[in-house]
């Protein structure tokens, strides 16, 4: 009960601030928190990245293993995206099998990559119908101060930028090979607080907002995934405005963190 009252107090505080044109951490409505991306920090992984977005911290590792293709696409590699909300990262996360939050996080990141055809699955066939590369994208959340999806999606693409194909480990021909990345989808998440659109919500803003939207878009301005969150509704105008902002902010993030 005490906790619920705290929730209400926090929510009122966030709304009051926004009504006054401000955010808890002093940012402008359309600003991201400070972002740091470090790549190739996990030796054992074929690709990896640690993304800090303010106090939110996510580690993404990419592993490749030979495995069976799906029966209906015998000459294509397979992407498996998985997110673990390990209890280290938040007092609210509990040990156990994936719940709806971790499933949604993984699936939204996954859809962004699939929708944009960032990974060329045709190039991941080892032996048609028998053996293809399985690309495991594992999202490991270390500190949750909100907006896990943008951090995870950015970490996933950063991890994929320079993935070594482990031919040697599995006794396969091919030598030193790098997986080609064909596209660079970037996720931008916004919430609606009292009619205002806030980019990159922190934990308290996320909790306070009734609705949010993630927009994943590509360098050519196309959208490859959308996902609305929350128990509230959004007007048509809000959604189209969020899509516009999302595409623009994605371009900024891409230029800063994903270009050579």
């Amino acid at each position: 009960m005490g906790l619920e009252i705290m929730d209400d107090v926090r929510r009122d505080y966030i709304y009051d601030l926004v009504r006054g044109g401000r955010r808890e951490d002093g940012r402008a409505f359309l600003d991201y928190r400070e972002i740091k991306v470090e790549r190739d920090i996990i030796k054992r992984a074929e690709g990896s990245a640690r993304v800090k977005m303010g106090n939110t911290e996510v580690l993404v590792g990419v592993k490749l293993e030979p495995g069976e293709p799906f029966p209906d696409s015998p000459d294509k590699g397979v992407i498996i995206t998985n997110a673990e909300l390990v209890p280290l990262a938040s007092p609210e996360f509990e040990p156990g099998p994936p719940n709806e939050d971790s499933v949604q996080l993984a699936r939204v990141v996954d859809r962004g990559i699939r929708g944009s055809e960032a990974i060329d699955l045709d190039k991941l066939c080892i032996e048609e119908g028998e053996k293809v590369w399985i690309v495991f994208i594992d999202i490991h959340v270390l500190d949750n101060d909100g907006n896990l999806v943008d951090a995870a999606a950015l970490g996933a693409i950063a991890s994929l930028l320079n993935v070594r194909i482990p031919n040697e480990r599995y006794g396969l021909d091919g030598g030193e090979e790098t997986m080609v990345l064909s596209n660079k989808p970037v996720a931008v998440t916004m919430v609606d607080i009292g009619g205002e659109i806030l980019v990159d919500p922190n934990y308290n803003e996320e909790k306070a907002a009734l609705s949010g939207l993630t927009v994943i878009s590509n360098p050519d301005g196309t959208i490859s995934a959308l996902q609305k969150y929350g128990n509230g509704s959004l007007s048509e105008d809000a959604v189209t405005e969020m899509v516009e902002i999302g595409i623009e902010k994605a371009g900024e993030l891409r230029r800063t963190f994903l270009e050579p």
Partner: protein
Amino acid sequence: MKEEGLELIKGGKRLDGRSFDELRQIRIEVGVLKRADGSCYFELGDNKVIAAVYGPREMHPRHAQDAKMAVLKYRYNMAPFSVDERKRPGPDRRSVEISKVSREALEPVIIKEYYPKTEIDVYVEILQSDAGTRTAGINAASVALADAGIPMKDLVSSVAVGKIDGEIVLDLNAVEDNYGEADMPVAMIARRNAITAIQMDGCMTRSEFEKGLKMAMNACQKIYELQRTALIERYSEM
């Protein structure tokens, strides 16, 4: 999605003869189950879906209760025989996500404050699937909630739009979904154009997205009328 090689549009018509903004056949039956507090059978083309509602009823375990309002639960489940390759019983990642998105699609219309400490359970069974099951499920659930007498501000209506052969079209069937370029399910409170769910995957430009959203909004108005009519018929019978 996004497979090439099959022509999905010929002579301005889709393979099943529909025009771009045409819904599949819809059939709605209210109150089809005896044990449930409310229920609805919903056909959308070859999709056959049943929704049942139980509650408000006491919530277990108690520590999950909300002292101020009812808790809404939603379980989307595919019958093993509803798809070409038998689906293993039990929840998978897809159904877990759909359940969450569908619940959030309905939350805005449910007046949960009337029944603190209780739960309202929505169960949606997909008996036959042909793309669009989540939208059919939300439509069925919305009617079943009304049939159960759950206090609601309005109905929620849902439909998908997508992109096939470069065109934005309404309500993709399975072939269109498999060989098309994008799919975007939308749910809304049709009478006030409030979007309660939106998902998309594939590839759309901004203008395609905006065109698709409008198409979905128009279709939701039609679906809303069908839902309303089904409920009125049901209650005028009684």
